């Protein structure tokens, strides 16, 4: 079975990341395949955002292998990840406060025409994009510093959707979104899946996760603590893995399954 399936889009093996004495990630494994939505869950401080930053090249791993389409890659800078087609919505959004919405959405990949930037086209596309996502900002030409929390998150999401990312990494993307916007966003994730995009979704919301994810990877204290098929796992099992109520059962089973596969 292993030799016929194509290699995963992204696979991490034994990734470690320390901040001084603090081991934020220890031997973390993860796989995302095209058209797959993998949810990453875990308690506060479990290392989810650290893993996201490793994948996006923002804070490179100290140890471990990262493979893209089965080939080993180095993600030392955000640029490296972008070149592969990885787009990220960070937990802290990482917007340029003083730039307007258009400027933020297109930052680093501005459209050009003879003689400079094509502001008109960028503005048109930004409006289109935000409309199509039912994400609302008062005006695409105001600095994002003046936007509400949810509006800022909308901008970060639009930014990640621009272009044709192959893997989209979302760190609690709906934390600040309203009810309607959240739902619309979840629809969007399904559209992405249908287009064969890989999605890594960090979330604390079991409802959202059950709604859109195929698999759930759980981190606990910086280590893998289970990998579940959403449709075959109960909420209780997941919560146990996240909070550490039962650490063995599920992990065990998964580990055995992996051994068989190899």
């Amino acid at each position: 079975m292993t030799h016929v399936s194509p290699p995963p889009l992204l696979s991490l093996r034994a990734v470690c990341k320390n901040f001084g004495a603090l081991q934020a990630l220890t031997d973390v494994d993860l796989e995302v395949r095209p058209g797959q939505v993998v949810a990453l869950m875990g308690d506060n401080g479990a290392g989810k955002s650290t893993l996201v930053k490793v994948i996006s090249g923002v804070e490179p791993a100290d140890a471990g292998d990262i493979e893209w389409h089965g080939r080993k890659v180095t993600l030392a800078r955000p640029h490296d990840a972008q070149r592969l087609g990885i787009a990220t919505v960070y937990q802290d959004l990482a917007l340029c406060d003083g730039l307007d919405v258009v400027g933020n959405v297109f930052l680093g990949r501005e459209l050009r025409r003879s003689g400079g930037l094509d502001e008109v086209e960028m503005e048109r596309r930004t409006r289109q994009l935000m409309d199509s996502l039912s994400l609302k900002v008062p005006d695409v030409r105001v600095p994002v510093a003046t936007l509400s929390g949810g509006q800022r998150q909308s901008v970060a999401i639009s930014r990640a959707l621009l272009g044709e990312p192959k893997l989209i990494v979302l760190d609690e993307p709906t934390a600040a979104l309203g009810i309607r916007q959240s739902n619309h966003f979840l629809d969007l994730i399904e559209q992405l899946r249908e287009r064969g995009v890989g999605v890594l979704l960090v979330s604390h919301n079991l409802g959202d996760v059950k709604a859109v994810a195929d698999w759930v990877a759980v981190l606990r204290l910086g280590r893998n603590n289970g990998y579940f098929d959403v449709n075959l796992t109960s909420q209780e099992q997941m919560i146990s893995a996240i909070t550490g109520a039962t650490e063995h059962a599920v992990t065990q089973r998964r580990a055995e399954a992996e051994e068989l596969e190899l």
Partner: protein
Amino acid sequence: MADADALSDRRGGGVGRHLLAPVRRLAKWGTPVKGHLRRGDLGRALGVLGLVVLWLVFQAFNSNYLSARNLSNISVDMVGTGMIAMGIIVVLLLGELDLSVGSIAGLATAVFAVVNVHAGLPEWLAVVIAVVSGTAIGAFQGSLSARFGVPAFIVTLAGLVGWTGLMLYILGTTGTFNFDDGGLVASLTGRYFGDKAAAYGLAAVGVLAFLAVSRRTAHRRQAAGLPSVPLGRVVLETGVLAALAFAAASVLNHFQGLPLALLIFLAIVAGLDHTLRRMPFGRKVFALGTGAEAARRAGIDVTAVRISAFAVSGTMAAVGGLFLASPTASTIQATSSPTLLLNALAAAVLGGGSLFGGHGRAWSVLLGVLVIQSIASGVALVGIQPAVQLLISAGVLLVAVIAESGVRRARTAHGLA
């Protein structure tokens, strides 16, 4: 109701995957009315008003002040400081400060003099070497700041002192150096285009270019279905610009015609303005200025942009130094660098180049440096004592920043932040 159900269902953890039916679009209630107050307008209006008041005051003290000769002198004398100020603007947009520009200007003149007079290289080559050494110094400072994560004001404070030391070292015991006062550098401020057609032609070209760009942008925006500047406003702006440009041309023609220095300055201002507002480099500078980490995560090579910005600042400082050295055909005095820095910074700030990243157009430096030079000229004509002149320079910078802050607040209050 079906919508609401779907919403609560999904939000509530259900496993169903309903597609949300499209909901009524939110009213576009948030679009601020911007037609009558575009970004920077207020600052520019205030600047022009201040300039007019200044001129009238000095004219009252000395009736030669508004003579064509003096106004023409101002237009030439401002170029050196203006060049330096333009470099500073780029660094200010980064949210940083370059304290070393005055020293770099001085050092560049020393390099020029030594290479030209001592080593005997041709003047054009010496100019290139002097300017490139400014670029290299700027890039060096920028890379120190970027690579070690050291605030630029510290690196450039070291530069302020260090480059002065290097300049003194280069000049050796002579302390100063004279160069050919009929040569290339001397003619930078000494040459005028006496033909009346030159000044008027330049004014006409500028006005037409402005009109063409405005109209084309408006057309493209309309074609793309975006709100655009109404025709009336474009006509008004063009009219104001034309009036100013032709008045200036006429004054210049009453003295010796269009100064070469002014022509070069206008060309460089136009180029820098385009680079900052319409080119990817400018966008990157703005981005870094308002969120360095965000810019990094957007894949922008933060170090490269930072180094480039300081290289621009160093280059412009060297160019400015040559213009400042041109009238005396001698190297700039080492001690003058803090005052030079102050004037250039004041010009940059007065021009509305916000210090907080995100704003600042190169064109506005033109206004800023005009104010600074008008004051310098007036103070000299009225014969104010040097100690008081220093106080005035300091006061002008303070007034500039306070005015700028007022403009900024007004802008924020109008939702244009």
